[in-house]
């Protein structure tokens, strides 16, 4: 998508690469800049991870810094906590979204809380990378969208990247952050290509990005559904509606300033994500935006997410995943509210 709003300005250091390679470049850069950065996870060494995100890193940085772990997620996170206490900056890889749950206690009770428990004395700069979401025809447990759990957990930051440039910049920032970060990678976008400026500064961890401005309605998306949102905005434009798109980038905290600004401008908002609608991040956005912008909203903030069912078998996932059609249908619904703003 040349000239798309997701592309950063081109510089000398700009290269076209896939989202997966951009993450690899981000990891490599972080490891080069700071020798306290270590990687641990299942199959991250010789194999380079099942998605090859750590490809070549063990070869270049050694087995001491790129650690093939035993098969135990709780231990991966628990040991990362210990490493962080010792002054390292561990980056954990969870092989698939559905396999993070055995580590749940270590993440929500240990990693998230230890700083607060210590009265602010300790900090745990741990990044947990998770390939997330569906759309790759996988078997069960390999297509989960579980950001809600971590977003609801005080003490964590939750980041979601949608394109190669952000992937590179956000990952570097996540590794630099002294707070624990859950870092979501949209697995069905690993092979999407885009321009990456390798010299760009690390991105802020609390700002959303307006990818496209609009006047009639704003779509809010993150990770894998940003692409869907852009496509829906294109389609809506053909029907004469000016639809903006916000890429959240950060799920916790939310960039409420940007969200409110867009809601004020367009009066209508639709949130899309792959997680179940019920208690998904769309609920928080709807509640908070409505609270902040009640008088200017012309329609309720509507949501498009998964149904309240476990992720289905691959052959029906295209019907299950929020797609352009469902998004457009919901945009129609939002636009069909006749009411003026109350102001």
């Amino acid at each position: 998508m040349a000239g798309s709003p997701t592309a950063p300005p081109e510089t000398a250091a700009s290269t076209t690469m896939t989202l997966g390679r951009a993450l690899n470049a981000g990891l490599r850069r972080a490891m080069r800049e700071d020798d306290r950065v270590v990687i641990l996870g299942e199959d991250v060494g010789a194999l380079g991870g099942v998605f090859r995100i750590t490809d070549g890193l063990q070869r270049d940085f050694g087995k001491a810094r790129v650690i093939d772990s035993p098969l135990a997620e709780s231990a991966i996170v628990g040991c990362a906590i210990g490493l962080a206490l010792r002054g390292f900056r561990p980056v954990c890889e969870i092989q698939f979204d559905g396999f993070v749950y055995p580590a749940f206690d270590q993440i929500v009770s240990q990693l998230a809380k230890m700083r607060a428990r210590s009265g602010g004395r300790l900090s745990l700069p741990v990044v947990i990378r998770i390939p997330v979401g569906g759309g790759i025809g996988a078997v069960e447990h390999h297509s989960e969208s579980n950001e809600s759990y971590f977003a609801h957990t005080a003490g964590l930051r939750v980041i979601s990247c949608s394109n190669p440039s952000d992937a590179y910049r956000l990952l570097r920032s996540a590794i630099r952050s002294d707070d624990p970060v859950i870092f979501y990678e949209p697995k069905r976008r690993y092979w999407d290509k885009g321009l990456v400026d390798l010299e760009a500064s690390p991105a802020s961890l609390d700002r959303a990005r307006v990818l496209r401005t609009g006047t009639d309605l704003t779509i809010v998306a993150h990770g894998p559904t940003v692409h869907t949102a852009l496509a829906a905005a294109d389609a809506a434009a053909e029907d004469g509606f000016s639809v903006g798109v916000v890429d959240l980038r950060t799920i916790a905290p939310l960039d409420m300033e940007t969200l409110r600004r867009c809601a004020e401008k367009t009066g209508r908002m639709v949130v899309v994500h792959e997680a179940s609608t019920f208690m998904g991040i769309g609920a928080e956005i709807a509640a908070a935006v409505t609270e902040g912008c009640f008088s200017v909203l012309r329609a309720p903030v509507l949501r498009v997410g998964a149904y309240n069912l476990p992720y289905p078998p691959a052959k029906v996932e295209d019907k299950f995943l929020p797609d352009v059609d469902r998004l457009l249908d919901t945009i129609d619904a939002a636009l069909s509210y006749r009411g003026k703003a109350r102001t």
Partner: protein
Amino acid sequence: MTLVHDPPAFASPTDPPPPSLERIWTSKDSGPIQFVTPDGELTDLGAEYGVDRALAQTLYRDMARARRLDHEALALQRQGELGLWLQCWGQEAAQVGSVRALSPSDYVFPSYREHAAALVRGVTPGELLAQWRGVSHAGWDPGPYAFHLYSLVLGTQTLHATGYAMGSLLDGADDVVTVYFGDGAASQGDVNEAFNWSAAGNIPVLFICQNNQWAISTPTDVQFRAPVHQRAAGFGLRTFHVDGNDALATYAVTREAAAIVRRGEGPALVEAETFRMAGHSTSDDPSRYRTETDLATWQARDPLLRLETVLRSLDTRASYFSELEEELERLAVEVRRACRELPDPVLDQLFTHTYVDPHPLVDAERLAYRKFVELMSVED
């Protein structure tokens, strides 16, 4: 060819009992129990136990069927008919030898690579492929086969087996609830909780660890320092260590282990040494992490060849082999047909599969889904 009993020694109640195959762990490990060498010769122990021709023929047929199914499924995956396939190639003896040693009503919790065991239990090729074709998460009804759904979240099924066995105990049954898991899964907390819980409660579970030397790209020396059977002994389980490419030894060892469990002496574990001949899955590229030499070493220990040599040395009739060959051809046809005939799933139906009792949210969402589908069909 060394001494062969036909019918087998252990089938006769008047014979003196053969030596126990249990592995009491000591610091010097004497290696896995073997009845047949890779060259197809009986070991002393194997000779002492003798060979039951009928059993050997059954096991060989079971293995041959599994390998053929595996092969066909691989081809189907390459043709795009399956989304993914995890081969059991190389592990046929470990599976068939163990599952055949159970009573057919002993409920089995597989991991996800137990295709050979599944076939023995009667799961049909279509049922077995459904999950990998992406038409369902589980292709069969576990009850009739006493064979549970595959579990993809590693090790979780060991606790389900332990709970099931608690129930069996409460019911006064004498089942040997059996659970399969891998060398990698053994590192999970759940598996160790299951070891501990079942040992503490004297719960009738039989753990079968197929140590196929790899967990995707991770070799066992990254996974653990001491073999899994030693670990299990530490928890107080009765433990066995067997050459998992030796179907006859695996059968005998599992039989002894199952008998211990059935007698109420507590849980037991069999560690079967075997090898994953293919990649982890059809998505894997094993050349990134292991050598051809590895493969060659284990190729030479092939479980089918080994038992075939035994059978031939027992003067098995040629018709046995030829009839089997025909059966395998029929199986191959059946696998391909069943795969292609699997009906696609219907999202609408899934709305009824999540809860038993009515659920207003799911009902509302189904309604919304139906309206949306209708709308789309009108627009088309």
